[in-house]
């Protein structure tokens, strides 16, 4: 154990601070020798914000959060564990369809789910998520939410899911790898079959792959019309041999240069562009998807208390702001917007000009369960 001195001189303090900064001593040693650890402990009982909230006390077990790849701040999750003693077990999925399949198979042991707008009504109808008890996570404030994004989570006036963040589905182009300058889905598919043959990827996901191909042909993003789907299948199957891959995990291929153009979500685009400025994200002039992901609580969640504590924690504005900074997905919460740095708010990948958004559509619930779209996607993949 480190000895705790009664006092510490200013120069000694600076010495210790330097040692800590250089990494010569541990954080624990630094806090102990300077008395800062004790000071924090005393302060935290006096300042209400630093004290664990009542709802977070007495939690136990593990929290199972089911979400998407590259879609949370590890630091935030670690802090949740530190404050509540509940470790978070993260399950990562590639598509809403896959999440639904696991839930339909039963007893997943999941507590918190991150569903996309178009799936929530189906989850509700299949009795897979519970109506949220808003009293249990006071950090969520519906009045602070952008009203555009409140629709999908609320069914018949009951809140089944609260917005996590929103984004778009466009495509990303490595401008160092190609001089082509596509601005629409029509051009995307033409390039994929032509100059960028072997260098393009599409999602392993029916909603966006079929939807974007539909836009290239001038159909609605959510079409389930059999004739239109037949035309879409023709386009996709003709493109298949030219694709580099069919995958929703396209960051590795874009980063190491295997692919030069990829169907892409906002958050992946933000992460790619942050590390490689030559990565240029575009929304199709001819349309595409706008989406809003939610937090929902699974019906019969094994750790329901921790699930609500988690929602309360993660939706706290300053914590939520760290989420956005980590994964680069636009927030729906105006309180969080105020806390974000200029660089994020001015980033056109996250916040495109309003006129670019008008052509975009929400996914429709019908596409989740429509057998024709499902089989089309499966045939395309096995083609």
């Amino acid at each position, binding site marked *: 154990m480190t000895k705790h001195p009664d006092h510490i001189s200013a120069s000694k303090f600076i010495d210790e601070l330097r040692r800590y900064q250089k990494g010569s001593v541990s954080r624990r040693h630094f806090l102990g020798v300077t008395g800062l650890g004790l000071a924090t402990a005393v302060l935290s009982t006096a300042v209400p914000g630093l004290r664990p909230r009542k709802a977070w006390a007495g939690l136990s077990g593990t929290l199972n959060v089911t979400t998407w790849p590259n879609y949370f701040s590890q630091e935030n999750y670690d802090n949740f564990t530190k404050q509540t003693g509940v470790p978070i077990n993260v399950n990562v999925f590639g598509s809403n369809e896959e999440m639904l399949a696991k839930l*339909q198979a039963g007893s997943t042991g999941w507590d918190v789910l991150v569903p996309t707008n178009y799936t929530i009504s189906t989850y509700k109808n299949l009795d897979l998520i519970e109506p949220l008890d808003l009293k249990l996570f006071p950090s969520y404030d519906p009045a602070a939410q952008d009203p555009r994004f409140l629709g999908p989570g609320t069914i018949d006036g009951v809140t089944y899911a609260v917005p996590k963040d929103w984004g778009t589905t466009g495509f990303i182009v490595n401008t160092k790898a190609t001089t082509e300058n596509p601005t629409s889905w029509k051009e995307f598919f033409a390039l994929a079959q032509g100059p960028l043959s072997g260098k393009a990827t599409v999602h392993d996901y029916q909603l966006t792959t079929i939807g974007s191909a539909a836009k290239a042909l001038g159909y609605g993003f959510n079409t389930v019309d059999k004739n239109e789907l037949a035309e879409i299948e023709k386009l996709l199957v003709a493109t298949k041999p030219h694709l580099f891959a*069919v995958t929703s995990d396209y960051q590795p291929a874009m980063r190491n240069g295997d692919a030069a153009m990829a169907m892409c979500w906002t958050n992946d685009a933000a992460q790619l562009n942050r590390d490689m400025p030559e990565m240029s994200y575009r929304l199709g002039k001819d349309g595409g998807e706008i989406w809003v992901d939610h937090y929902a609580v699974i019906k019969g969640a094994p750790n329901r208390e921790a699930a609500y504590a988690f929602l309360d924690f993660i939706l706290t504005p300053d914590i939520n702001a760290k989420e956005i900074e980590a994964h680069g997905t636009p927030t729906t919460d105006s309180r969080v917007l105020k806390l974000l740095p200029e660089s994020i708010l001015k980033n056109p990948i996250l916040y495109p000009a309003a006129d670019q958004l008008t052509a975009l559509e929400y996914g429709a619930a019908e596409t989740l369960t429509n057998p024709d779209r499902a089989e089309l*996607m499966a045939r395309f993949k096995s083609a």
Partner: protein
Amino acid sequence: MRGSRPGMMNLSMASTSRPKLVTTLLLLPAGLFFVFLLLVPLAVVLIFSFGERAPAGGYMPAFTLQNYMDLPARGKAFFNTLTLAPLGTLLTALFAFPMAYFLAVKVSPKWRVTLLILVMAPFWTSQLLRYYAWMMILGNKGIPGWLAMVGLDVRIINTPWAVLIGAVYGFLPLMVPPIYVSLEKLDKRLLEASADLGATPARTFWQVTLPLALPGVATGSMLVFILLMGDYILPQFLGGGKVFFIGNALVDLFLQSRNWPFGAAVSVALVAIMFVTIYVYMRFVLSKTDTRRAALV
């Protein structure tokens, strides 16, 4: 033992029935396992394969042959699996045999165990991690990148070649030990006899060593072939959704389009194909080894 004491009626009864009881008890776990985790699920799969997809996905009871009529829609997946799985098995065997031969015949016993452990060493790392590494090696900045420096434009990742490379790499540790075991048991005097009788080393290899090692090759091949036929991760990672196996089609049908009945029909077809292939193969190998053995004796 009490049972060995004669004259006591009830105990001698026990002595005959006890081994039976012990046998039953010993077989019970395996038997229950077999019935409940193999036969019953197989029956469920068979029943599902005649059903219909429920409106929100899943299974709905029905009796239709439509799922079997739809099988040609997965023709490419069957084709890929039925060509690449045998080819991958063959390649793995070709790589494994010299390795096993070296270990069993050439290496001094002092090093044998160490080297055998090293063959298995890749298994200590997660399969997923190893395939991710191969994605990098076979990707743009890996081997194709070096080849590009000498002017060769080659693409490996997300082609059947990548899947074959992954198969050989991934399954070599399964193929080497069975071949090693059969070669190690090989009576070296047979080789001397063969040489004494004037056979060249090549002829000795083809007519003595190889036939005697055939059971090991057959076992290893079966292990690898069965795993490759049902593989999902390898084509997913190194095929990138472009080299599609039946395993990938099944994952799609159960997890994405949630058409369980069609998925069940595809599974039944896969099981049927495996059964026939393995039956024919085993018959062939057994007849070969038997005749060889007979011919040798």
